[in-house]
């Protein structure tokens, strides 16, 4: 959101060149530093915090938001925004459950049904992302408006399908599906594996492919990118589709966890995902950002609430205040250079 960085940019500064550079190095570590300090605080407050079980719990639950945040990172770097991810996740979860329940009586093998549901989730996510991308590029409407609109539309559709209540997964299917969330591989829960794979893939795509470079170029200056023969619309549509697919993937992990979708599913996930990206050091105005930062941002946010759950030092009413304070303080440690 901040206008152009000061022309002098990274190399600016005077005699403070060296100080500048080490600051720059430190700067990248802002969220890491925040995370480390938080973890120390957590351990001091409750020794259970540092247990492997707790660490795995935290990482597992971070997976949803984390995966979405990786997709969101692309959208934000390209200069866009997506407010609809929470509703989108809810609607996808609802549709997937409806599909699976509908297939159940047809005599398909449960595993096949679950697989069909998973494919459907990814397809739906991609389709929604495509719709966003086209409205934004072809329709030439602000991303904020488009996704604010679909935020309402997605959630309303889910509420309608659920008739105001919840859509619940058939019990037999739930049992087949639940290992996707609850099982572990080599002691690490499946969602954490998925999260790791998504994050690494995201990092590679952003930093090691032409597409990733184009995303950054568009966010930095769309006009220059267009003149440099970048297919701007195409790339933008793909960022939204990537995000949609990430949301689909997060839903895949969400459904086996709670086995139902209701009008409150995914509420405010958009805020959490965007916050993870921004806390991770990506600028809201786009142009540059990092997947590693985003992952750390997402973990950081869930560590805060984990610590609040593990301790009992302040009124429960003030939980949100503590979260807010920590977010501001972490951001302060990695603030832009003077």
């Amino acid at each position: 959101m901040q206008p152009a960085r000061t022309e002098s940019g990274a190399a600016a500064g005077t005699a403070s060149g060296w100080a500048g550079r080490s600051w720059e190095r430190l700067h990248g570590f802002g969220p890491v530093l925040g995370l480390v300090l938080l973890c120390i605080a957590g351990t001091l407050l409750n020794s259970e915090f540092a247990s492997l079980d707790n660490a795995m719990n935290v990482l597992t639950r971070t997976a949803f938001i984390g995966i979405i945040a990786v997709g969101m990172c692309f959208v934000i770097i390209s200069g866009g925004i997506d407010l609809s991810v929470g509703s989108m996740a809810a609607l996808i979860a609802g549709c997937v459950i409806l599909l699976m329940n509908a297939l159940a009586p047809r005599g398909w093998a449960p595993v096949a049904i679950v697989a069909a549901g998973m494919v459907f989730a990814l397809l739906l996510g991609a389709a929604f992302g495509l719709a966003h991308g086209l409205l934004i590029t072809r329709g030439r409407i602000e991303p904020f408006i488009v996704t604010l609109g679909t935020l309402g539309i997605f959630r309303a559709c889910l509420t309608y399908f659920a008739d105001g209540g919840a859509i619940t997964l058939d019990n037999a299917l739930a049992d087949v599906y639940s290992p996707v969330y609850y099982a572990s591989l080599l002691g690490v829960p499946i969602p954490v594996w998925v999260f790791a794979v998504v994050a690494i893939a995201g990092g590679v795509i952003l930093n090691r492919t032409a597409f990733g470079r184009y995303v950054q170029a568009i966010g930095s200056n769309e006009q220059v990118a267009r003149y440099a023969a970048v297919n701007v619309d195409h790339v933008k549509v793909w960022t939204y589709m990537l995000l949609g697919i990430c949301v689909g993937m997060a839903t895949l992990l969400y459904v086996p966890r709670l086995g139902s979708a209701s009008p409150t599913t995914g509420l405010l996930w958009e805020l959490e995902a965007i916050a993870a990206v921004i806390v991770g050091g990506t600028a809201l105005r786009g142009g540059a950002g990092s997947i590693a930062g985003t992952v750390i941002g997402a973990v950081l946010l869930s560590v805060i609430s984990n610590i609040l759950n593990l301790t009992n030092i302040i009124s429960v009413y003030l939980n949100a205040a503590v979260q807010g304070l920590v977010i501001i303080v972490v951001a302060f440690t990695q603030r832009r250079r003077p």
Partner: protein
Amino acid sequence: MTIALSFHDVAKAFGPVQVLHGVSFALQPGRIYGLLGENGAGKSTLMKIAAGYEMPSGGELHIDGRPVHFSGSRAAEAEGIVLIHQEFNLAEDLTVAQNIFLGHEKKRGWLLDDAAMREGAAVVLRQVGLDVDPDTKVRQLIVAEKQLVEIAKALARKARLLIMDEPTATLTPGETERLFQLMAQLKSSGVTIVYISHKLDEVERITDEVIVMRDGRFVARDATAKLSRQQMANLMVGRELSDLFPPKRSIVLADSAPLLEVQHLTVPGWAEDVSFEVRAGEILGFAGLVGAGRTELFEGLLGLRPHRAERVGIAGRAVHIGSPRDAARHGLTYLSEDRKGKGLHIAFGMTENLTLMDLARYARPWLRRGAERAALKAAVAEFGIRTGSLSLRASSLSGGNQQKLALAKVLQPQPRVVVLDEPTRGVDVGAKRDIYFLIHKLAADGCSVVVISSELMELIGLCHRVAVMRNGRLQTTLAADQLTEEALIAHATGTH
């Protein structure tokens, strides 16, 4: 009214890079100084210090003999020192009048006096000869018009010392002429002017005295009348420069097939029914005044503006070009005249800028950073980009070096047809010569090159043929033997 500014051992370092090494010289009031130097010599940096935009890391400025320390540009302006930036500094969303008075609004009580500002803007716009409504948004102006607004903005400031950092880089002879009259007027009213330019003919014409810098140091000063252009160039580069323009390649093969054919191209509002063709190995120039529609013609051709054409052919095949991407696929690339707005990602590193148009080559499928860096090293050597470090952002390069980087960028994909809009904008004489050689080499290798330029000498020295546009129409195409400044101006202004 008059002001005497002097520099005493002024030094400046950006981090570990020392850019200015103790520069000292004094400016007498009421004279026009030409400030010369190669790209990256430190001219812009020194002048930014003089106008309070940068702090010196050593040394002092004196005004009328007393030392001054500017805390910002506002303090320098209070002393009457005004700088016209090499890169535009206009808020695109504001109107021309609003930009001209930004930070110096005229008020009536609490409220802005927009009528007075509009009037004031109209006055200075008339002085620089720009015929636009003061209420036009700057976003809607073309590059040359923005340059004129920058100049008008400085005029509105009532300067005692006016520093112009390459004001004519994008102007055509008409506007330049007008600017010179204006400078003469200012001078006669006692204003000191520092004029930075790489166009030595202009320096020779308008300045009283020339100051030369090299590698962040003061090298020489002398009365303009005592120096020839050749001598100025030699002082800048510190060695003997031979002839500026490379010898023209004798003649294009008459029967070589046209590589780019354009028939009846119309860009509504900008260019009407333009047809031309460029053969392989040919350099075609485009001349015209500001507003002739040359830039927009080619932006239309590239699909950046709405346009229609009967036929666009590349290498004999009819092609549809809906975007620069299509064009690049057919081997056509375009260098924009608007370096900062359309040419470079100034927040990106040099590598990322250089390879952006040719990423496919480095992505297999993963980008090979090493290969990219090697490409940068090669480009730095080939285009003579002068920089302290290869990891600088584009925004930290000097203006001329940014231009070289932009040129290197559009040539990266090895196009068959390349359109260069003001290719030597802000480039120093030595590097200009290298670029001319390069363009010739491109042509010799079978490329078609289109050069849009405001420098007539450049077109005459470089091109096989020159097309002249006026008011969006192609007036004529002059062959090499008909190329003279007079002929070009006559066709461009419609007075032939």
